[in-house]
């Protein structure tokens, strides 16, 4: 039903419609509204016999999920930021064991300095954890991707992370068509686990595997990811049939990527998540001015749709990758994956790190990127709206005295004195 609803609430209701058996969570902003709503829905008996467990840490949240999933229960949890880092060990374990857990990551920056606002450095840190990662461009897709995620996870026996920008999406109220439980049931069959702890048919799960088979186990995990690249389009098609919309949101292409005016685009902006909306507005603006701009969103970051990305971008002249996280010491994270996709093709590509720690990514700044890209003034790697003066002063201080004090405090002092 179409309603004006907060993103978190829509996700919670959609998850509830997927009828999980176990939901476990530890509160962390900006994930809280999702699990608060799920607690209420559980208590109201809206999710059948679902068990909601307040754990004492994210480490335990994912651990409970592992135990629950291995016992054949459909299992859900949500986290963000430091929470995701605190559960890294069981996150890897869940994928290694092939447990189809679905987890929402309400994307948030990672400290230090502590920062509760949005960027994607949390989920990006887990890009190699073996989980499937789906990024939502708006709240409709944030909600819908969960339905797809459960189906995908359980078909492949692999956990899936649905990443949605914290606050920007989780706390935004907008019109969302929250999937009807009857339709969800049509799309999402009963969970039939591939392995289950059952006294009737006992197995040992989680054996120690030595050099003789570890590579093979890892290869099979990789193979499953690649398999997902085939299954996601199938499931997306099926989803569309049932729900009359794409799980990946507007401009969805096979559930893997989104394509916006790519056919003839000379400048293509690439991004993950909610910034795509602003980017599309920018594309429209430039198109009005006759600039052949386009945008590509990546919904499935893991597995990375190398072929689709290559096909979508190979005719572009300039590519600007807008990233909400980066790899210190190297540069872009998404960019390097796109480079892999485009290997052998010589296209000028720039990486712009934007929106770190909640800094607004404005339409104005995005639009300027297109201009700069067109005029060749966009460096290969840069930070959007970086306060150059501020950082240069701190660097100066560092040069002058070894003990220049805490960097964050210095910057704040500087800002205050302006």
């Amino acid at each position, binding site marked *: 039903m179409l*309603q004006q609803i907060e993103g978190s609430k829509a996700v919670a209701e959609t998850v509830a419609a997927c009828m999980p058996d176990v939901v476990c969570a530890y509160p962390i902003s900006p994930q809280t509204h999702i699990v608060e709503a799920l607690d209420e829905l559980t208590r109201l008996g809206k999710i059948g016999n679902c068990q909601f467990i307040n754990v004492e840490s994210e480490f335990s949240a994912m651990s409970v999920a592992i135990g629950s999933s291995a016992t054949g229960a459909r299992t859900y949890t949500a986290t963000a930021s430091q929470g995701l880092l605190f559960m890294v060990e069981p996150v890897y374990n869940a994928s290694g064991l092939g447990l189809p857990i679905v987890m929402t990551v309400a994307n948030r920056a990672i400290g230090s300095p502590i920062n509760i606002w949005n960027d994607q450095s949390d989920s990006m840190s887990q890009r190699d954890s073996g989980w499937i990662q789906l990024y939502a461009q708006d709240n409709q897709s944030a909600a819908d991707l969960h339905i797809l995620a459960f189906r995908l996870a359980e078909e492949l026996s692999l956990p899936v992370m649905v990443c949605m920008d914290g606050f920007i999406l989780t*706390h935004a*109220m907008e019109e969302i068509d929250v999937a009807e439980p009857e339709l969800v049931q049509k799309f999402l069959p009963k969970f039939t686990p591939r392995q289950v702890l059952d006294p009737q048919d006992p197995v040992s799960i989680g054996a120690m595997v030595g050099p003789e088979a570890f590579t093979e186990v890892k290869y099979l995990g990789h193979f499953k990811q690649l398999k997902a690249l085939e299954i996601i389009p199938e499931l997306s098609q099926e989803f569309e049939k049932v729900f009359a919309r794409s799980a990946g949101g507007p401009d969805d292409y096979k559930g893997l990527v989104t394509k916006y005016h790519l056919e003839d685009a000379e400048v293509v902006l690439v991004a993950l998540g909610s*910034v795509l909306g602003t980017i599309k507005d920018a594309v429209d603006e430039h198109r009005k001015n006759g600039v052949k701009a386009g945008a590509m969103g990546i919904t499935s970051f893991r597995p990375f749709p190398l072929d689709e990305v290559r096909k979508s971008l190979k005719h572009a002249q300039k590519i600007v990758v807008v990233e909400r996280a980066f790899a210190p010491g190297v540069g872009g994270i998404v960019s390097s994956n796109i480079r892999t996709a485009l290997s052998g093709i010589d296209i000028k590509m720039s990486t712009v790190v934007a929106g770190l720690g909640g800094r607004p990514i*404005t339409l104005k700044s995005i639009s300027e990127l297109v201009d700069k890209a067109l005029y060749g003034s966009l460096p290969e790697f840069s930070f959007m709206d970086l306060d150059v003066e501020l950082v240069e002063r701190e660097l100066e201080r560092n040069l002058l005295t070894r003990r220049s004090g805490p960097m964050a405090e210095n910057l704040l002092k500087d800002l205050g004195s302006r």
Partner: protein
Amino acid sequence: MFQIRIHGRGGQGVVTAAELLSVAAFLDKQHAQAFPSFGSERTGAPVVSFCRISENPIRLREPVLEPDAILIQDPTLLHSIDVFAGAKSDGYMIINTTKSFAELGIDEFVASRPQNRNFIVPASDIAFKHVGRPMPNAALLGGFAAATKKVTLASVVAAIEDRFPTKIAAGNVAAATEAYEFVIQELEEVNHVAAN
């Protein structure tokens, strides 16, 4: 697209106000987006929330930087933050106060804009009367509906009724309605003055 920025203090229902507004717009068959300023502000701290209303689906995810309307739930904020930042020259401004613009020291700002864009609503008083608590947000929304015509009073009322339990909803509906009438009255006075 019509963009609204609401200023208030933590605990005054600033975020709720933006959300109610978006629901009202949704009920009026428009597209709307409401979001807070994503802070970790505690009770009493200055808080901002945003709402966008449009005939078309909204994709933009930046904060409202150039508001078409500014709602000020607490006039004491005038001295601590720049509530008028980015204000459009023909934008709306509705402030919860019993004082005059002059008494608030913003008569200069008001004077620089069309007269039928600036409104005073004694929202806390109205709220106190109907709800028993000085929660100004519903009353200000009634005032906003009257001033801007961007949402209907009926939708504001429906949004309030949908959000709150019956008793509280009734008080807030009464407050919104009274504020709505209050602003209509103000408008008439302005028009009357203008006509004269």
